[in-house]
C-alpha cells in the first residue's frame, strides 16, 4: 500500500493511488519507537521505586504488573525499530478528509496545539464561553477558514450554547467568566 513519507507526485495522483517509496530516512519513525522504548525502560525503573507495604497479604505485589508492562513495551518497540530498519515502514492512517499525497503540515499542527493550550489559562480566567471562542476561532483560522471573524462569532455562539446546555441545563459547573457572571441565568 502506501508508504510513511509520501513525495507528492508530479501530476496530482487521483484518489490515493500508491506513490513511490520516498528515499527520506525514517527519522521520525525511529524517534517515536525510541521514545516508546524509553517509556518502557522508565516503567521498569519506576516499578522498582513503588513502595511495597511490609507484610502485604497478596502474593503478587504492586510491582509485578508494571514490570511486565515495561518489558512488553520495550520488546515491542525494539521489534518496531528492527522492522523499520529493514524497510518495513508504517502505513499512515487513511481517512475521508486526508489528502494521501500531502506532506505533513507541522505548522498547522503547532498552531492547533497552541490554540488548545489557551484553554489552560482562559477557562478559569476568562470563562468557558470566551475560551471556546478563542479555541474555535483560532482552530478554524489555522485550518483555513476564509473569514476569521465568522469563525470567532460561531465560536462565541458555540461557547454560549454549551454554557447553557451543559452549565445551566445539565448543571456542570463551567465557569461563566467575569464578562457573563452578572447575567442571572449564567450564575447558577
Amino acid at each position, binding site marked *: 500500500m502506501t508508504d*510513511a513519507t509520501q513525495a507528492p507526485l508530479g501530476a496530482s495522483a*487521483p*484518489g490515493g*493511488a500508491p506513490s513511490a517509496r520516498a528515499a527520506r530516512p525514517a527519522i521520525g*519513525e525511529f524517534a*517515536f*519507537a525510541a521514545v*516508546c522504548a524509553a*517509556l518502557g525502560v522508565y*516503567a521498569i525503573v*519506576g*516499578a522498582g521505586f*513503588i513502595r*511495597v*507495604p511490609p507484610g502485604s497479604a*497478596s*502474593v*503478587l505485589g504492586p510491582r509485578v*504488573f508494571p514490570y511486565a*508492562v515495561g518489558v*512488553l*513495551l520495550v520488546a515491542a518497540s525494539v521489534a*518496531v525499530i528492527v*522492522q523499520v530498519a529493514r524497510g*518495513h*515502514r*508504517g*502505513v*499512515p*492512517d*487513511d*481517512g*475521508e*478528509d486526508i489528502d494521501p499525497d*500531502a506532506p505533513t*503540515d507541522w505548522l*498547522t*499542527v503547532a498552531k*492547533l*496545539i497552541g490554540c488548545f*493550550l489557551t*484553554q*489552560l489559562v482562559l*477557562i478559569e480566567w476568562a470563562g*468557558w464561553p470566551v475560551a471556546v471562542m478563542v*479555541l*474555535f*476561532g483560532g482552530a*478554524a483560522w489555522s*485550518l*483555513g*477558514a*476564509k473569514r476569521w471573524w465568522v*469563525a470567532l462569532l460561531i*465560536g462565541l455562539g*458555540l461557547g454560549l450554547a*454549551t454554557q447553557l446546555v451543559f452549565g445551566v441545563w*445539565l448543571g*456542570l459547573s*463551567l465557569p461563566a467568566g467575569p464578562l457573563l457572571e452578572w447575567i442571572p441565568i449564567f450564575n447558577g
Partner: protein
Amino acid sequence: MDSLNALLEGFATALAPQYLLYALFGVFIGTAVGVLPGIGPAMTVALLLPLTYSLDPTGALIVFAGIYYGGMYGGSTTSILLNTPGESSSIVTALEGNRMAKAGRGAAALATAAIGSFVAGTAATLALTFLAPGIAKLAVQLGPADYFALIVVAFLTVGALLGSSVPRGLVSLGLGLLLGLVGTEVLSGQQRYTFGIASLADGIDVVLIAVGLFALGETLYVASRLRHGSVRVIPVTRGWRNWMTRRDWRRSWRPWLRGTAIGFPIGTIPAGGADVATFLSYATERKLARGNARAEFGRGAIEGVAGPEAANNAAAAGVLVPLLTLGLPTTATAAIIISAFQSYGIRPGPMLFENQSGLVWALIASLYIGNVMLLVLNLPLVGMWVKVLRIPRPYLYAGILAFAGLGAYALHFNVFDTLVLLVIGLVGFLMRRYGYPVAPMVVGGILGPMAEEQLRKAMAISQGDLSYLVHSPFAIIAYSTLAVIVVLGVWLKRRKARLEATAPDPITASLPAWEEVDR
C-alpha cells in the same frame, strides 16, 4: 420463556414516552456523528457522560445505546456518498458503495445499507436477547483465572490483529497499559507513576484516553494532511420510495443474512470488532457471486454493500454480549459505556441480569426500538445527513476540538485534565502519523487495571502458583482459542492485503454531477 417475559417488561419500560424521546435523541445524535468524519461514537458517548449526573440509569443507557447503534448507520452514508474512503469499519462498504454512487446507483446503495443494517441489527439483538442470560448464568461460575484468560485473549487479539504489523499493535497496547498503571493501586494503596501530582493519584480517566486519541489525535492528524478544496458529495436523486428495484431486493437479502451470521459471532469474541467482520463478509460475497454480479464486483456490486453493512451492525450488537454478561469491553465505545455503568455504581458482569434485570431488559428493548427509528431516520431523511456531511472542514474540526476540551474539563473541572488530554492527543497524532493502531491503546488503558486485579486475585487464591492460571477447562479453552484466533487473524490479514492489492483502482474520472461546496 423467562427472558421473553423479561423482554416484554423491558418493552413496557422502554416504550414510556420519556424513554422513547431519549432513544430518539440518542439515535439522532449517533447518526449525526456517524456521518461526520473525525468523530466517532466513542467520543460522543464520552462527551455525553455528564448526562449521567441528571438522568436515571435507564434513560442514560438508552441514550448511549442509541448513539452506539446510530454511529454504525451513519458511517455507511459517509462512505457511500463522500468521494473518499471512510473509517475503518465501513471502509469495505466504500469499496463497492462508493462506486455504485458514482455510477448513479447511490440511492440503492444507501437503501441496501440501511435496510441491511436494520435486518442485521434486529436479528443480532434477537440473538443477544436469547444468548445473554444463558452466558451470564455460565459466567457466574468463572473465577479470576478465567477472567484473566479472557482479558489476555482480548489484549492479544486486539493488539496483534489491528494495524499494519504485530509489534506496532503491541506498542500501542503497551502504551495503554502504562496509562492504566498511573494512579493509586487498589489492593495496597500505593501510588504508581504519579510524580507526586495529586490529580494523577486518581488515575487517568478512560474518557481522557478515548477523547484524546479519537477526537484530538484524529483532528491533529487530519489537520496535518487536510484535503483542501471543496467537499465532494455524490448527489442522490430519485425519491426514497423506489430506491431499490425488485432485482436489488433479490440480490440483497441473502448477503444481509450471511453478513449477520458472520458479524454477530465475531462481535461476541474479543477479536478486534467490526473491522474483521466486514472484511470477512465482503470476501464471502465476492467469492459467492455468480454471473453478472461477479463481473460487477470492484465496479459497484450491491452484494458488496449489503453483506458488509449487515456484518458491521451485527458485530456491534455482538459486542454487547461480553459487555453485559462478562463486563468485558472489547471496543472503545463499549469501554466508555462501562464507565457510564460505573458512575451509577453498577458493575456490568454476570450478576447484572440478576440484580439489575429491569435496567438490562429496558436497554435491550430500546435496541429494537432504536433500530426501527434508525431505519426511519436514515431512509427518508438522507438529504439532511448529506447537508451535515458538507459542513466546511475548518469549522467541523474546530468544533471537535472545542467539544474535546469540554469533555476533558467537565471531568473534574480542572485544567490539569485538559493538559493530559493534549498530551494523549499528541501521542495519538504521532501514532496515526507513523502507522500505529490507536484502538489497542484504549483497550489496554481500560482492561489493564482489570487484568491486574484478576491476576492478583488468582495468585492470592493459589498462593503464587502460576499453574493455577490454566487449571480450569475454561481458561485452557480460552488460551487455545487465542492461538487459533491469532494464526487465523494473521492469515486473514495477508489475504486482505492481497485482496486490496488486486482490487482495481477507483474510478476517479470526473463525473459531471458532483455538487461542490466551498470549505
